[in-house]
Each structure stands twice: as structure tokens, then as C-alpha cells.
């Protein structure tokens, strides 16, 4: 065990790249990603753990990065929306969101995509009900969710 400290150098792997940074203990993971690593795909929405715009996957677990401290992620492997596509190409989920008009303003989309990814990683053939439950923690104020559910179902279909 290390001693109590107000700041610490942490090492995290984000989308396959390793970063070492000194962080204050009070720094939220979402601010670390956006402001320290310049990975601004992850959005800050409500900042109270309700909207899900800041959802990322840490060591395989979907969570809201506004309710985890960066210092807690020391040694962790993190996936953010920037890691979904490769070489400038959108992945199947991202393409399906475009094709099914699953976004309008786009603010919730990074979190929505990470929740959808976490679902499909674990359950490649979800029912509509399972899709709806999987995105319960992600609020979208534009689409009414119908097209988002269709897009996730389509991406699941395409992945089969």
C-alpha cells in the first residue's frame, strides 16, 4: 500500500496507448480523459451520474467516468469512443448509427455507443428489450430512442 497522497503519477492504457500523467486525487476520470489526454470524444453531460454521456469501458466494465476518480484508474485499461473505429473508418456500430439516423445533435452519442458496445461484447444477439435496458443509463433528448434501438439491432445483425 502506498501512503495517502493528494496527487500521484498514474499509468493508464487508453485505446491501446499507454499514458503516464501526474493527477490530483480529486480529478474525475472524465476530466483526465478530456483535459489531460485531449480525448474529447467522451462528453460531460449532467456531471451528476444521470445522463451517461461520459460512459467509458474500464477493464471491461461499462461505467460513468464522472463518478470515478482518475487516480482509481491507475493500471487500468480504458476504452473510449475514439477507440471504436480504426484508420479513420467507422466501425459497424458507428455506421449503423449513421444509417439509422440514431443521432441528431450527437451529444449523447459517444456514451450511447460505449453502452451499445458493452452490450454487444457480452450479448451479440440482444432482444429489443435487452437493448432498451442496456441503454437505460444513457439519456438522449433528440431521437426518442427508437432509431438508436434500431441501429444497435442492425449492428448486432451485421456482426453475426
Amino acid at each position: 500500500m502506498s501512503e495517502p497522497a493528494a496527487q500521484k503519477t498514474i499509468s493508464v492504457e487508453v485505446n491501446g496507448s499507454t499514458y503516464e500523467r501526474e493527477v490530483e486525487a480529486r480529478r474525475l476520470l472524465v476530466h483526465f480523459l478530456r483535459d489531460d489526454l485531449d480525448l474529447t470524444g467522451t462528453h460531460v453531460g449532467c456531471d451528476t451520474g444521470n445522463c451517461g454521456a461520459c460512459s467509458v469501458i474500464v477493464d471491461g466494465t461499462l461505467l460513468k467516468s464522472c463518478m470515478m476518480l482518475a487516480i482509481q484508474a491507475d493500471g487500468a485499461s480504458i476504452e473510449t469512443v475514439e477507440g471504436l473505429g480504426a484508420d479513420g473508418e467507422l466501425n459497424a456500430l458507428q455506421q449503423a448509427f449513421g444509417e439509422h439516423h440514431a443521432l441528431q445533435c450527437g451529444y449523447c452519442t459517444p456514451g450511447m455507443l460505449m453502452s451499445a458496445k458493452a452490450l454487444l461484447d457480452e450479448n451479440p444477439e440482444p432482444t429489443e428489450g435487452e437493448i432498451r435496458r442496456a441503454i437505460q443509463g444513457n439519456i438522449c433528448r433528440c431521437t426518442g430512442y427508437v432509431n438508436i434501438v434500431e441501429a444497435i439491432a442492425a449492428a448486432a445483425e451485421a456482426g453475426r
Partner: protein
Amino acid sequence: MLLASVEYVRPRSVEEALSLLAANSNARALAGGQTLVNVMKARIAAPELLVDLNDVPELRGIRETDDGLELGAMVTYTQLARAEEVHRERPILADVAAQIADVQVRNRGTVGGNVCSNDPTNHLPPVLVAVGATMTIAGASGIRLVPAEEFFLGVYLTAVSPGELLTGISVPRRQGGDGFASVTIGADGTCIANAAASMNGSLRVALGCVAATPVLIEVPSADEESVRSAVAGAELDPPSDIHAPAAYRRQLARVLATRAARQASGAA
């Protein structure tokens, strides 16, 4: 939002965690952080030291024993909702855990955090009172066991004193059925009122959201009339807020107690 400056430490054992908590009267245990981090953002709490329990293996895991289930304080809602042992021994715990908030919160939020924050709208306090759970609290002078109905002392207040740590929860083997019913703000949202029930000879009903702590009522039989009159006899004085006036919560307590009792008695 920017949190107030804070120190952080990640102990590897309960013993280390206890010595850290004992050494600083303004230290707080950090479990899943789904309440505490937000409370710190709002500067409602400003601990000097966060003792992160996420690396303490003793606090993890669900064990089946001769007497029932042993839940580590750091078991997440997702783990509780999925564990085979829980589905076998006490499925109500899995059912209730699966209806707390959303995937992300269930992945991080812990059983120990839920009961130690003791927000009167939380799901698990009434359930644990109804099933007759026992809380294990560790401190400098050793371990003490506290029945769930004596654990919850007030809003955000429990039997865990400064310098102590809730390490686990023992849930006895099921004798009869269990039940839970709630009315929430949106699907799986915050409870406006809830009720848990458990059959073990007589019926134990614990009502949530109608007082600072779960209200335990022993009912001689599970028929609807007995449950309703037992709830009426409790002379509840629930709070009014933006979601419901007191009279509505009182009415919900009667209705939800009946529903939970019906499920517990196998009639649902």
C-alpha cells in the same frame, strides 16, 4: 465539477483500511463512488482522505454457507444480480439489485455502499431488514455483528461508527418466500415508496421511503386484510416532497406492502 482537494489511498486489506480510517477522523471509505463522488462534487461532503476499498479482496465475493449467504461489502449490484448462489438461495436480492438505476451504476455501485449511505429511498435497506440479515462491522476492537433492523439509525446514518468498516452482510437461508414492490420515478429509478416482505413462520414487512429508516412490521398472516391493517397500525408519518405528498406515500406503503406480501406468500 471540481472536487475539493482530497488525499487518496488504496489499502490492500481490511486491517490497513481500518488503521487509515482510525488515523484520520475526516477520512471516508470509498466504495463504488456512485453516491460519494457526487456528494463531493456538490461539496456536501469534503473528506480529507478517501480510503478506496476497491483493492481489498476480503471485501469481495459471495459465499454460500450452511446458514445462507455471505455477501462482501464490495459486491456490486451487477454481481449480486447475476450470482448463481443468490438466485438459488435468496433470489429476491438478485431481482432487486437488477432494478437499481442502470447498467453503469450497477457495475460500480456496491451492496455496502448502498446500506452505509442509507439514503431512505435506497432499495437494499428494507430488503435486508425484511430477510433478517446481519451486518458485520470491523473496528479497532474487533468484529461486531448488528442485525439489519438495528443497523439503520437515521437519514445517511448507520451503526458504522467513525473508524469502523462494514465488511460483509450475512443473509440467512430462506424459510419461505420473499417479495419486493416499489413505485419509482421512471423505470428502475429512485423509489417514491417501496416494501419488502419475507415469510418465516410469520410475515416480516419492511417499508422504505416512509421514514428515516426502514419500518419493520411483523404480520401474523399474509392475507391482504392483515397486512393492510398492520401497516395502518404503524401510524406512518412519511415525508412530503416534490414526488409525492405524505398521504400518497402512506397509501403506497399499504399497497406495496400488500404486493410484496402476496409475492412472499407465493400467491403472486
